[in-house]
């Protein structure tokens, strides 16, 4: 991205102060969001989300594995993000690694809940096949195809849509196996289980520019930010994760105000996203 001149900088900041951004939006308005599901047939679930010029793809793959020792009654979920150099020349080689790691850690923090498994967007107990021996491992991969700011919100939305699209094969465990042997399993080719994604949160990023904060910042607006707070809110209105970016410090009262603004914005975003996902699924079936 080319650097901005001083005049452009003042124009952007002045516009935000006047509640009129470069593309005509208000401070708390999202760019148009479009969702497609089932874009990659080989995966168990996939989705593509476009937020303005930001374009991301999320896919879910399920494999049978062994549960962790600490939580033998729960399946495992991992989240990875790849910043493709098709999105931006700066991502060439290892240039995108730092951003990708930051995004994947933020997503894990927002979606996977605490270490005891409480508060996770997915019920991890539903991923167990044989307790202590066999469980489903979910691998969620996010790919950044085009980058124009607000990657975290777009990835969060794409993962939510991909999980809605996910079908996991039903597994039959062979009877008569003794306890200490490794059980034999039969994976069905026709029966699939689907997730209840009503508890998967959405991520709202509030970017502070000057003395105001905006939602869904573009690349240019992000270059003017002093700091940004990404807040993950679920349908029940609970906070599922918070991540702060940018180095400048924030007053605690501002953060609390950001949290209440994010809850308000997330209601509209969740409804919009759910209707987009529902229509995308319907379109895919037809």
């Amino acid at each position, binding site marked *: 991205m080319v650097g901005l001149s001083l005049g452009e900088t003042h124009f952007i900041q002045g516009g935000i102060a006047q509640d009129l951004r470069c593309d005509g939006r208000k401070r708390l308005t999202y760019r148009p969001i479009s969702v497609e599901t089932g874009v990659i047939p080989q995966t168990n679930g996939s989705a593509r989300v476009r937020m303005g010029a930001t374009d991301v793809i999320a896919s879910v793959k399920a494999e049978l594995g062994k549960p962790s020792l600490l939580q033998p009654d729960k399946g495992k979920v991992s989240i990875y993000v790849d910043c493709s150099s098709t999105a931006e020349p700066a991502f060439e080689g290892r240039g995108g690694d730092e951003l990708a790691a930051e995004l994947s850690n933020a997503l894990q923090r927002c979606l996977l809940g605490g*270490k005891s498994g409480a508060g996770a967007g997915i019920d991890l107990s539903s991923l167990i096949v044989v307790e202590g021996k066999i469980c489903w491992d979910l691998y969620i991969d996010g790919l950044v195809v085009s980058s124009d700011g607000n990657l975290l919100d777009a990835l969060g939305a794409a993962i939510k849509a991909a999980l809605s699209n996910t079908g996991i094969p039903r597994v039959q465990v062979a009877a008569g196996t003794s306890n200490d042997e490794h059980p034999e399993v039969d994976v069905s080719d026709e029966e699939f289980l689907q997730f209840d994604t009503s508890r998967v949160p959405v991520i709202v990023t509030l970017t502070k520019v000057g003395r105001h904060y905006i939602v869904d910042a573009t690349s240019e607006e992000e270059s003017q930010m002093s700091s940004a707070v990404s807040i993950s809110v679920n349908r029940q209105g609970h906070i599922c994760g918070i991540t702060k970016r940018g180095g400048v410090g924030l007053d605690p009262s501002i953060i609390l105000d950001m949290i209440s603004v994010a809850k308000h914005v997330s209601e509209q975003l969740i409804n919009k996203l759910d209707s987009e996902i529902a229509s995308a699924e319907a379109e895919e079936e037809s």
Partner: protein
Amino acid sequence: MAGKGGATPATYSPSPTTNRKKKPPIFKEDWVRPDGRGFHQCRPAFFRTGAVNAASGSAYAEFGNTKVIVSVFGPRESKKAMMYSDIGRLNCNVSFTTFATPIRGQGSDHKEYCAMLHKALEGAIILETFPKTTVDVFALVLESSGSDLPVVISCASLALADAGIMMYDIVASVSVSCFNKNLVIDPILEEEIGQDGSLMITCMPSRYEITQLTVTGEWSTTKINEGMQLCLDACAKLAKIMRSCLKEVASDSQE
């Protein structure tokens, strides 16, 4: 020792019955923490600066059984591959010794700690005072016993002060764990493993600004309020301890 004794049976007998028995005691109302602290009581904090001779600044910190050593080098010339920068650069690295965790070599996958340490510190350092140069911060966790990252951040800010890097304020960091509806401050490793959610705050106490905030798990707004206030109060007390450590060194050198 009590902590390790408690952890060993879980490692060697992973039967479901044993694991289920572990969890219920946490939710009882009359539950006492494994090391006898109250819910809102931090572990004893020990700081020492000047732990590494070769470094421009260094610090050693202990929070209970969590032991961290941090070295600061620079400001020094940036590598030529880096582009010109009007302000200074901050480079952070956090690593664990192989013997830091109860199971050998397990602590090496904390890659996100480097980025979080960087973001916590860059808001506090006056980067404009050393343009075109780089400051390196290297942190080593000697023993990991819960709440590692807050200890690393606090120790790193002390090391930067020891190196004479100009900062707006000292940086203090504390974390809180959530168990159902109870908040437990400065959790140890045993508590961290079973927590429902966690909240970590890094702040500059004199300026009353938060430079890093991380929340995991499901929280209500009132609970976040409560957790933030708990952390900010603890950070203010921690900052006093850190300042007295710096003053101690200054008065010693005058003698």
